[in-house]
């Protein structure tokens, strides 16, 4: 872990709060991050969006891989034999 950075001053908060909006919570919930620039908040949201996309792709891939075998497993024994 590296030493912590100095926190940006709250003197001139950026009022956009894209982070709270993007994560679907009231602005007060993430008000500590008001001092993060709009651009940085957007960057963080982009990272979350990327993970969401990766998760979704992973789910699709896992489903595509598992479904044939699952359906086969759910078939009654005789039908399972025939389908092989």
């Amino acid at each position, binding site marked *: 872990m590296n030493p912590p950075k100095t*926190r940006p001053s709250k003197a001139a908060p950026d009022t956009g709060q894209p*982070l709270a909006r993007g994560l679907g919570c009231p602005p007060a919930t*993430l008000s*500590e991050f008001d001092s993060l620039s709009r651009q940085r908040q957007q960057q963080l949201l982009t990272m979350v969006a*990327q*993970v*969401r996309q990766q998760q979704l792709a992973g789910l699709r891939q896992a489903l595509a891989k*598992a479904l044939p075998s699952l359906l086969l497993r759910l078939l009654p024994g005789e039908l399972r034999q025939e389908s092989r």
Partner: protein
Amino acid sequence: MLASQVEVRKLAALLAQPESTLQDLTAYPPEALRTLRLLAEEQCLTQQRPFFRRWATLLGMLPAPLAASLANRMGPLLTARAATEMPSMRAAAIANRLSPVFLARVCHHLDPQRSRELIRQLATPRLVDTALLLIEQQAYLLLGRVADALDDAAIAAVMAAVHDDAHLLRIALYMESRTRLDHLVRLLPRERLIRAVLLATDPEQDLMVEVIALLANLGYGLKHELGDLAASQPAMVLERIIQVAESRQLWPDLIPVIAELSADTQQRLLTLPVLLQQPKILAHIIDAADQHELWSQVLPLVAMMSPQLLERVAEQAAALPDQALRRAMEAALMTEQWPALVSVAQRLPADRQRQVASIIDGYGQQDPQLRRRLVSLASQHQLGQLFSANG
């Protein structure tokens, strides 16, 4: 602060980013970072929930052996998502039929917040085997979150099965609940706990941060005993503790630990040459005291310092902003640490001495008796000339 650094590490893991890309966030309080992480986790781990609810309902209707067999075919990702949506008892009945190897793979995809009850209901032997596999994979972050959900018996069983104390320290670093951590530490046999803390002093192991984090989160009694134990090591080891705290800026975590040590140990720490040789260390300690409201814990240490070290402290204090000086004096006021403060004031440049005197005069308007007492103390330190006779 270490807790913020740990939170950033967890966020980086969730977002699959190198920790260095989120370093700027370590300046934020750990509670705020935790909220951010949980919200991000919610976004990432709850996609396609209605689908998985239906899937979970279907699995829930099948006999547990068949559901377990299907889970194996579904793979760890789909199983984790379906398990999170199931009633925990049902999910545990299925999980208890899965191999520890598969369960360990499922754990990597579990939503730890929503899976607490499921984890609690796993059979202890299965849990222990799964935990050992995760330790082999060095999945300490994940294990820290799992440990939060476990009851005492399960934790005790895992701790008994893990022979290397370094693993326990690495897991403890990532536990979410500090009160739970203090409780769990008390479940460890005393000799084992001592051995674990002494690992910090082993140069072969890189566990200083973990041990400092552990000590910082313990209650008074254990902090005192274990802190003293770690600090009773040779001076070289103490210097290493100071250097690690400095390089990772762990002063907000370490100051409260030092404050609980015995006077003898505190004295040993204060005589370490490194404090005189590297003035930046004192500057950072003073900074941390001000930013994290730790003046009341630092002032008693100042009272024990040698004249040489006091000179260095005064050099740093001279550069403090006015408000920081006021906060230090407020702490002296609340904790009756005036001798420490006056011994530093004695070494300050004249303009800062006048500022100290003016703040004391301000107190005098509310409490003339206090002013008289402080003027008398100041006079004993050759600072009497700063005050007018009638205040």
